[in-house]
């Protein structure tokens, strides 16, 4: 489907539709500029015909150049491996737009974010509570992502209003932000009637650090380090999505060797996190032997990362235009040897888990997320694949994955066991992929390209271990960042968790939580 087909499709359903402009700046990106009054209908239609949830919805402050705000909405056309960006202008003296939230739930959180960060009102959104700037800490009328924002203005503080379930015998159990384990902060408010959870409200934002604002004004090359610190366990996926966006803008194509190296590092990251979660799931049902076993495998993977790149978390590896560390022959042999022993250890681990009846009993049908719910919420990545939604960017935007014969893992049942199985399948697949990619490495190939900074905007994406990591980047002619919008898959999937726990008991919450293992910092930014 090229751009004219998309437009014809829209015109078919919306008579009188007239796009202000349609451009295809990159082969995988179509930008449709529409009038503000057409924005909502266009988005709803794309949501329906592609079909795609709202993958991104964000504002940019262009008041300095053209006295307006711009709002972009990003949809994913999986069949054609394309992103469709719908864009509209909003006058600065009347900053508001028609909310999509009532028709497309996945737009809801994005609209709340636009409101708190830019002060642009989504008219008709039923829930306008702030996500990251907590009412107890940050007075209203502070809009940090506006360009003229300097520092917090004082004002009246207020309190966050939780959704409440009332009735005889309903108890509220608040948990957090400080949790019992060595993990990030978030607040969970359970409403229980007897044992089962009847409502869970998750309040996040505790680790908000203003990442998107810090990106602004930085040269792209220096900002790679920052993208690695958005979510520490997905540092490579984040830096990959970021560098890809910058490379698209600068018109650089990455050398073939670098593409293989990146794929290897991305899979290594997936593997160590998957095995960590498998151990975590075992630990949360009190099965400590496999948990310890998994942590040994994870540690050996981190040490492998360290030996390959000098960083246990694959930081300082990516750069705009390629990668900084190559894999020479000795490292390659070591990598292949390690994979062999990892595979053996891993199959022992899964054998222990799958053959334990009491373990299987705990994870089977626990924490069920139904496919319909997942689709409505716009769940992505691993959690979506576990309930039968075939969505993996590695399959649809394949690149080097195609020649390696990538196979997407898919499960139907949507419970903890399904998410566990996806992890097991993906770990094994990643092993195989790395072996394939390693075979393609040769020691003389270039691993970085020269680049000339340019102005422009582009979307970068990678399939991290949780799901798609998206970066929308806009630079000025010197290559400095004007706006960087980050979406971590956790942003969608936290919603999924609050539905998956319904009907379960609170003691099973850690288990459900671990089976999603979402990022606090990636969500809070």
């Amino acid at each position, binding site marked *: 489907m090229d751009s004219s087909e998309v437009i014809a499709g829209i015109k078919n359903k919306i008579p009188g539709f007239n796009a202000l402009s349609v451009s295809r700046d990159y082969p995988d990106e179509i930008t449709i500029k529409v009038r503000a009054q057409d924005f909502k209908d266009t988005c709803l239609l794309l949501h329906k015909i592609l079909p795609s949830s709202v993958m991104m919805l964000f504002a940019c402050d262009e008041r300095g150049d053209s006295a307006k705000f711009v709002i972009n909405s990003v949809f994913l056309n999986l069949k054609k491996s394309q992103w469709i960006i719908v864009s509209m202008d909003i006058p600065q003296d009347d900053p508001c737009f028609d909310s999509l939230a009532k028709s497309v739930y996945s737009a809801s959180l994005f609209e709340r974010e636009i409101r708190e960060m830019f002060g642009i009102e989504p008219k008709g959104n039923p829930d306008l509570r702030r996500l990251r700037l907590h009412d107890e800490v940050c007075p209203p009328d502070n809009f*940090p992502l506006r360009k003229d924002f300097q520092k917090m203005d004082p004002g009246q503080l207020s309190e966050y209003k939780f959704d409440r379930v009332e009735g005889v015998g309903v108890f509220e159990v608040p948990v957090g932000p400080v949790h019992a384990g060595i993990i*990030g902060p978030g607040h969970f408010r359970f409403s229980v009637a007897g044992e089962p959870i009847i409502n869970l409200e998750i309040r996040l934002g505790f680790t908000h650090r203003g*990442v998107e604002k810090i990106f602004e004004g930085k040269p792209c090359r220096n900002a790679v380090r920052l993208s690695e610190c958005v979510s520490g366990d997905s540092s490579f996926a984040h830096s990959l999505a970021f560098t890809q966006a910058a490379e698209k803008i600068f018109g650089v194509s990455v050398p073939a060797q670098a593409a293989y190296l990146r794929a290897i590092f991305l899979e290594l990251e997936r593997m160590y996190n998957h095995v960590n979660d498998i151990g975590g799931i075992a630990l949360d049902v009190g099965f400590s032997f496999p948990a310890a076993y998994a942590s*040994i495998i994870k540690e050996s993977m981190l040490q492998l990362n360290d030996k390959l790149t000098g960083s246990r978390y694959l930081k300082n590896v990516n750069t705009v235009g390629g990668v900084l560390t190559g894999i020479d022959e000795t490292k390659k042999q070591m990598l292949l040897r390690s994979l062999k022993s990892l595979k053996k250890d891993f199959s022992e681990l899964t054998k*222990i888990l799958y*053959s334990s009846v009491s373990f299987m009993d705990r994870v089977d049908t626990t924490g069920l997320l139904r496919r319909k719910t997942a689709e409505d919420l716009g769940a992505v990545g691993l959690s979506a694949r576990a309930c039968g939604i075939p969505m993996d960017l590695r399959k649809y935007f394949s690149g080097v994955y195609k020649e390696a014969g990538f196979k997407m893992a898919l499960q139907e049942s949507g419970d903890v066991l399904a998410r566990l199985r996806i992890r097991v399948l993906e770990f094994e697949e990643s092993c195989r992929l790395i072996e394939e990619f390693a075979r393609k490495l040769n020691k003389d190939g270039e691993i970085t390209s020269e680049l000339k900074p340019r102005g422009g905007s582009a979307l970068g994406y990678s399939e991290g271990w949780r799901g798609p990591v998206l970066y929308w980047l806009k630079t000025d002619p010197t290559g400095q960042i004007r706006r960087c919008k980050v979406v971590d898959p956790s942003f969608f999937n936290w919603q999924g968790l609050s539905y998956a726990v319904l009907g379960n008991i609170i003691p099973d919450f850690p288990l459900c939580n671990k089976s999603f293992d979402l990022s606090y910092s990636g969500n809070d930014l």
Partner: protein
Amino acid sequence: MIHILRNRILKGVVTRHIEPGLSRQIESAGPELKLLIRKRFGRSLHIRQLDSGSCGACESEIAAANNPIYDLGRFGINFVASPRHADALLVTGPVSKNMCLALKKTYESMPEPKFVITAGDCALNGGIFKDSYYVEGAVGNILPVVLHIPGCPPSPLVIIQSLLSFLQKGA
């Protein structure tokens, strides 16, 4: 069950010596330290970890310090679930404004005597996030910090070494 037993026998002891050169020093310090911790903290040093807005990498490394390979527990240093059980507070992250109150409250709910340790570059001075509108910056400005463990993130070895040498110095 048979898998577990077979694995237990085949794997043997995985716990790692902490680098050949240092291992002698630290591991010989082991009994001495145990004695010290026993005397000072009533058998063992209990640490409560708190994430004040980190990216999660520091947490991962602190958890790794407790895995069977590094096994911080063998020195009598344990991580606990409640600040009420803790002798020390281990803070990571650049202190997001949203976490400031929780940080203070956690410290207040710890029984005396108590001390604060920071881990990771963000906790020292805000690190890469220090210019942000929503970051309070150094943990040291809010709580009295006696030890900083550097790194982004600090590796489990660095965490163990810093803790041990700090405790030795304090002896």
